[in-house]
């Protein structure tokens, strides 16, 4: 299974995302923002970073890139797409996911190992989690405050489209403690924290068992591979 990872000018975590795909058992395929050829990949990851220097609004310029336009088209046909951090911002600016992301309420950049609850395990990227499973993956973000209109929030909650919720601490003022969302079909998922940084023992968050042993992020990528095999 081939999972594409798009690199925009200013992307930081493309290599980490490629590594996560590899560790999960897939084949990572580097994709370039200016190229509208998605190289027949089976899924796409929009990685974290500061695409186009966060100019205009985070993710706004990346949302108009040739590669993103193709992703939007294919995502509407069911292509699994995962947007991480800046990738989540790109998904929101592309209108693949509703709402917006604004500067953290407390105005500080925050970097911590974040506990989340998996609220929806029926998506292409979460099908290997238990419902309500608690996981810990790193969070590093300055503009992660999720906002939407009251009607949108109500719709997201009623349709079970909140995929991840922050636990113990809401790090950025997100409405309803929302850390991640999915689209109606469940193939597009966006979240602020970084699963690709918790995929290999020795390099992940600390756990009760051992320091840096957390690999809760691996299941995101394994879930996508499973969803592709089953489709």
């Amino acid at each position, binding site marked *: 299974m081939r999972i594409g990872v798009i690199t925009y000018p200013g992307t930081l975590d493309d290599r980490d995302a490629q590594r996560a795909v590899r560790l999960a058992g897939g084949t990572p395929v580097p994709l370039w923002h200016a190229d509208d050829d998605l190289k027949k990949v089976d899924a796409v990851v929009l990685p974290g970073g500061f695409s186009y220097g966060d100019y205009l609004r985070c993710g706004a310029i990346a949302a108009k890139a040739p590669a993103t336009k193709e992703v939007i088209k294919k995502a509407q046909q069911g292509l699994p797409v995962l947007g991480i951090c800046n990738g989540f911002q790109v998904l929101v*600016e592309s209108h693949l996911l*509703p709402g917006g992301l604004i500067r953290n309420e407390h*105005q500080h950049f925050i970097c911590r190992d974040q506990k989340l609850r998996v609220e929806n395990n029926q998506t292409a990227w979460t099908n290997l989690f238990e419902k309500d499973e608690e996981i810990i993956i790193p969070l590093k973000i300055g503009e992660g405050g999720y906002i939407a209109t009251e009607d949108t929030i109500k719709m997201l909650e009623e349709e079970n489209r909140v995929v991840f919720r922050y636990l113990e601490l809401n790090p950025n003022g997100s409405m309803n403690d929302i850390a991640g969302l999915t689209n109606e079909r469940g193939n597009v998922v966006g979240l602020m924290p970084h699963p690709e940084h918790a995929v290999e023992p020795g390099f992940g968050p600390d756990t009760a068992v051992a320091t840096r042993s957390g690999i809760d992020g691996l299941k995101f990528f394994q879930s996508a591979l499973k969803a592709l095999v089953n489709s």
Partner: protein
Amino acid sequence: MPKIIVEIMPKQDLLDPQGKAVANALTRMGNKDISGVRIGKRIELHFDREVTDKDLEEAKKQAKEFLSNDVIEDVVAVTVEN
């Protein structure tokens, strides 16, 4: 230089952290009567010729669809300066 000026503000009911930080600093500097600050954007689109009605129409479209995000911002003005 002929130009179209697009002015964008964060929505009224949203917290504007940048404005809040600047308001706090102004208060510290003794500006006790400034009760709040909100910070928006002014975007200038430059032309090497006179701006037409069609240009303005396109600028209004881009202001709404690309230059601003209507979830978090309002376009408060799109004006021509020929």
